[in-house]
């Protein structure tokens, strides 16, 4: 991948120029799906954009006794991490890539939740600290399943290169891995039933309680970009290989949209679980399947 294609992927498609409107669109789909499930009309189409611009134009209050630079840095790091993850997705055929970019993608996907943990603790709010502790516990529990699932997908197809992985036809083992990723996505996106870190009505806004104005706008954007990256990762793994760029992009967008719709419907249909139930769910119920997937992937690899 030369510098020009890398920049084009990061800034144009599927990077920022595509990802930011897509993030707003997915945030709208999330809210609209919840509204429709509750027999409401829901927010207008431009609502996430209105919210973003309004928050950008708000004044940040003076905060005593808090590291202002750190507070400002966390949301920016989260946004750049999520945007970088979107930029790495192999949407277009033969768009380049490098050996091991799957590992970089996983690291970048993890960056926003790391930032959320750090942000809650650096805001010195009691609600922020509780939210951060929950996010840390949640992250430890779902990430093992998530990483094992992705590892099993990569090991079953002998590559850590995203583009090759997306081009290869899906094996039954890959479907198992994709199912495990899907189970982890609600926790990664902090939506119901795993909306523990930002549990509204319970700990106010969790790690975001002390954030206001442009910083909050960046958090909202980071959340939207996480939607694009998370749904996009599954979409690229599910989608069959297409030779034409436009068609591949359309399929990617359609699959991501269906995924967002499904996850939002799940969020609207379920209530928030308690932290101990959530942790138990990931450690007891899903870890077995992830271990099964990785062991069979390794077994198949040694046999071939």
């Amino acid at each position, binding site marked *: 991948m030369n510098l020009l294609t890398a920049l084009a992927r990061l800034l144009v498609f599927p990077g920022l120029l595509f990802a930011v409107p897509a993030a707003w669109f997915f945030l709208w789909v999330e809210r609209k799906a919840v509204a429709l499930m509750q027999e*409401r*009309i829901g927010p207008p189409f431009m609502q996430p954009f209105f919210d973003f611009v309004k928050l950008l134009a708000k004044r940040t209050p003076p905060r005593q006794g808090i590291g202002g630079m750190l507070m400002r840095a966390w949301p920016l790091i989260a946004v750049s991490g999520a945007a970088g993850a979107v930029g790495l997705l192999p949407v277009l055929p033969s768009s380049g890539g490098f050996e091991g970019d799957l590992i970089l993608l996983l690291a970048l996907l993890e960056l926003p939740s790391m930032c959320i943990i750090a942000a809650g603790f650096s805001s010195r709010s009691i609600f922020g600290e509780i939210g951060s502790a929950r996010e840390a516990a949640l992250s430890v529990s779902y990430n093992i399943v998530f990483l094992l699932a992705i590892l099993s997908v990569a090991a079953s197809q002998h590559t850590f290169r995203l583009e090759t992985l997306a081009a290869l036809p899906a094996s039954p083992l890959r479907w198992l891995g994709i199912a495990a990723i899907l189970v982890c996505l609600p926790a990664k996106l902090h939506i119901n039933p795993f909306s523990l870190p930002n549990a509204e009505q319970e700990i106010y806004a969790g790690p975001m309680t002390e954030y206001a104005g442009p910083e909050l706008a960046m958090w909202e954007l980071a959340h939207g970009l996480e939607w694009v990256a998370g749904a996009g990762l599954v979409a690229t793994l599910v989608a069959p290989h297409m030779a034409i760029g436009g068609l591949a992009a359309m399929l990617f967008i359609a699959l991501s949209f269906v995924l967002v719709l499904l996850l939002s419907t799940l969020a609207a249909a379920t209530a928030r679980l308690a932290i101990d139930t959530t942790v138990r769910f990931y450690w007891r119920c899903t870890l077995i399947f992830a271990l099964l997937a990785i062991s069979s992937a390794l077994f198949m690899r040694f046999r071939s």
Partner: protein
Amino acid sequence: MKIWQRLICTCRRRSPWLFHMNSGSCNGCDIELVAALSPRFDAEQLGVRLEGSPRHADIMCVTGPVTRNAVSAIKTVYGQVCHPKAVVAIGSCPATTNVFIDSRTLAGPLEKHIPVDVFVPGCPPRPDAILQGVAKAAEILAERGMKPPDSATTPAVEEAQR
């Protein structure tokens, strides 16, 4: 520059986030405010979102006749809402202290402590009246955002960290 200003003005009008503050209310107005967000009235069509943290909010909705205990909390929360902000007094209690007038436990009405932009009268007011009040407050908010914060009308309130 002008287009950007107009865009911000529209966005402020279309995205009022509420913070609900109970200052000793009997819960009647609180239920009506929640009813305004429910499927029948669906305040989210106006872009309304009920926020848990006052730092995220644009409009502060106060219910209740302002008890003596609530005064410092109201001032702190008012200070935590970022500029531009508006205040909606929901029900007759924050406007006049209603039937609790002359009670020794009250320090109302609300306007003695913070500037109020919109009064929604009623005991309790109907959800559609609350929605109209919020929409009016959102318009006031959009106009206010054009000007820098006025220190004369803003009472000196200390920021509480926790």
